[in-house]
């Protein structure tokens, strides 16, 4: 699904990622953990193709294609989805309009027929129910005046609609209370299957109680310094990031 080889990236000339290696197979969920400033969000944004993140060396292969050569919209159409840490408010563009434009551009890219208004509405109502989103939110401007939890649910709604092959959740748990966290996790788990992969970027272990990962990687100073199974997250929670960083520098 996704292979990251020795990926280096910088922002405003400052090196943030310093040699990431990662392999994600179909159906796997990988958690990326790490202290603030370790490069977690940079990795997520580089994979989604955000401007002003400069890849200085390394390669990323997604489903046998060079991901780094693709424009952001092409990555999305090929099946990469980034759930934003800070979803953007867009006054004047209705949520429904965005969702329809998104699903149809993905469908068109895949050579499928675009959805007519009726089919789309039926589908979107079904997906909105999955994240317990009230229908009025569909008709409002994108994320405008949404609470933190509503914004994150809106991200998962978009993800559920687009059915990506690789979902990248960038600190989706930040700013969520426990009820919203459960709803979001339920939405994510419903999408989980043997052909879909996920990268769950998080600072805390809490989210991983609900979205159980196959692998956990710890990122520090732009490198993965330790990988393990879900028990690594628990160990981190107990001992803190200081422990593992000390451990890494001692090694």
């Amino acid at each position, binding site marked *: 699904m996704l292979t990251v080889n020795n990926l280096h990236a910088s922002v405003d000339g400052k090196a943030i990622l310093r040699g990431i290696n990662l392999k994600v197979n179909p159906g796997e969920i990988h958690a990326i953990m790490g202290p603030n400033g370790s490069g977690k969000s940079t990795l997520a944004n580089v994979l989604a193709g955000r401007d002003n993140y400069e890849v200085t060396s390394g390669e990323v292969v997604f489903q046998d294609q060079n991901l780094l050569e693709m424009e952001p919209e092409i990555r999305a159409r090929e099946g990469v989805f980034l759930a934003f840490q800070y979803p953007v408010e*867009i006054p004047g563009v209705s949520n429904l309009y965005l969702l329809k434009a998104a699903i149809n551009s993905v469908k068109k890219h895949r050579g499928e027929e675009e959805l007519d208004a009726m089919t789309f509405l039926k589908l979107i109502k079904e997906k909105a129910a999955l994240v317990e989103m009230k229908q009025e939110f569909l008709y409002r401007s994108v994320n405008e005046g949404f609470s933190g939890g509503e914004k994150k649910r809106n991200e998962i709604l978009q993800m559920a609609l687009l059915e990506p092959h690789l979902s990248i959740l960038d600190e989706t748990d930040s700013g969520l209370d426990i009820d919203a966290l459960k709803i979001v996790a339920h939405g994510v788990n419903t999408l989980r299957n043997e052909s879909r992969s996920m990268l769950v970027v998080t600072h805390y272990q809490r989210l991983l109680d609900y979205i159980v990962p196959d692998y956990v990687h710890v990122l520090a100073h732009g490198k993965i310094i330790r990988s393990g199974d879900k028990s690594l997250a628990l160990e981190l929670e107990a001992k803190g990031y200081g422990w593992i960083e000390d451990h890494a520098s001692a090694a």
Partner: protein
Amino acid sequence: MAGLKIMQVQPDTMLASGTQFYLDQFEQISDKLPGQNVDWLQSSRNNNLARFGKNGFPTQKDEDWRYTPLKPVTGKAFNLKSAPTSGVEHEDTRSQSALRPIPGLNCHRLVFVDGFPEMSMSDIAGLDGKVSVRSLSEVLAEDPETIRDLLDSVVGESSHGFAALNGALHQDGLVVMLEEGAILSMPLEVVYASNQELTLVQPRNLICLGKGAKAQIIERTVSLSDSSCLHNSVTEVILNEGSELDYYLIQDQSRSSYQVCGVWARQKESSRFSCHTVTFGGGLVRNDLRSEMTGPGAHCDMLGVYSLSAKQHVDNHTTMIHGAAHCTSNELYKGVLDQRSRSVFHGRIKVEKDAQKTDARQSNNTLLLSRDAEIDTKPQLEIYADDVKCSHGATIGQLDETSMFYLRSRGIDPDVARSMLTYAFVNDVLGQIKIEPLRDYLEKALGEQLIREKKLFGQTK
């Protein structure tokens, strides 16, 4: 050279003195203009001519015209047609689409081509007895006395040279009179189409609503060809107590045309005037909108949207005069400027001494899509009362990069994303258009224009 069209101005159409050219034209054509047997109109024409002869066209030395170069307009020899062209060609697709009614809009309709009514395309049948919609020439021929005290009563003598030129040499136009309590059951659409090269079109409109009367009027200016024309219109609006007028100016002429549009309104107690100006087309467009609220509790909205590219130039001048207490006004102009286009906004608010409890708001927001586009915006507040609320503001910005990335990360094409965001920017103004089919039509037209211009948006990154 087949298929290659060279646009150039012929030397013999350039003028040394624009003013003299039109004074001469008056000599040649004045006996063919509407209202020949109406003495008071003739003296009004002469007064305006004298004023035009004395002051001429404005220049960039006039503060009110500082940012709008008029040479391309005043240096060309535009001719007023003395008679309608027989058998106007409406067969090509451009003419057809320009004159096509707005989809889904049930309305009364009056069409003028090069200044002359085109009755075959008009439909003003079935009007209420208390409602009169006629052409100016018809009113002047049948009962000129009904408009004697109204025509030229609002514009005033301080207006600019273009208005004086219109006053001297105006052609036909729209006259709408609603008696007390009358309601125009459907919107009225008046279409001014220009067709022949170097035609001067000078419409003169008069709208007078009696007490409590209500009307919605759409005025659309279009081109039937790529020819260069000058559309110089004057509209006077008289709103009596409690009357309400929604007025929509849709400006969609060819890029080689010029438009100078003046709307002068006088509002009595508790009347409501709402003027929406939507500008897509025209090479150079100047709008002067002025409303004087003379009775307490009147309200005036001036809302504008313009979306420009290439070297289009649009200049919106507004004057809001609060002449009585408890009047409210709201101005919101939003523009999208691409390529080398340029816009000017000058919003003047005058609050007279006795106009206490005035609430006047004004705002001009611009989205710049290109580094070469330019906006000059200037508020001008003159406040002589002490218990008032007046606010003004101007913003200039670019498309938000984060929003662009957000939309693209959902698979949306950058061009579509750009037009979505641009559209969102003007949406709150278009959203205030009360006639739904018109709003849909304009939203679609704007969307299509943004997509059409997509290759001109610059880099896609």
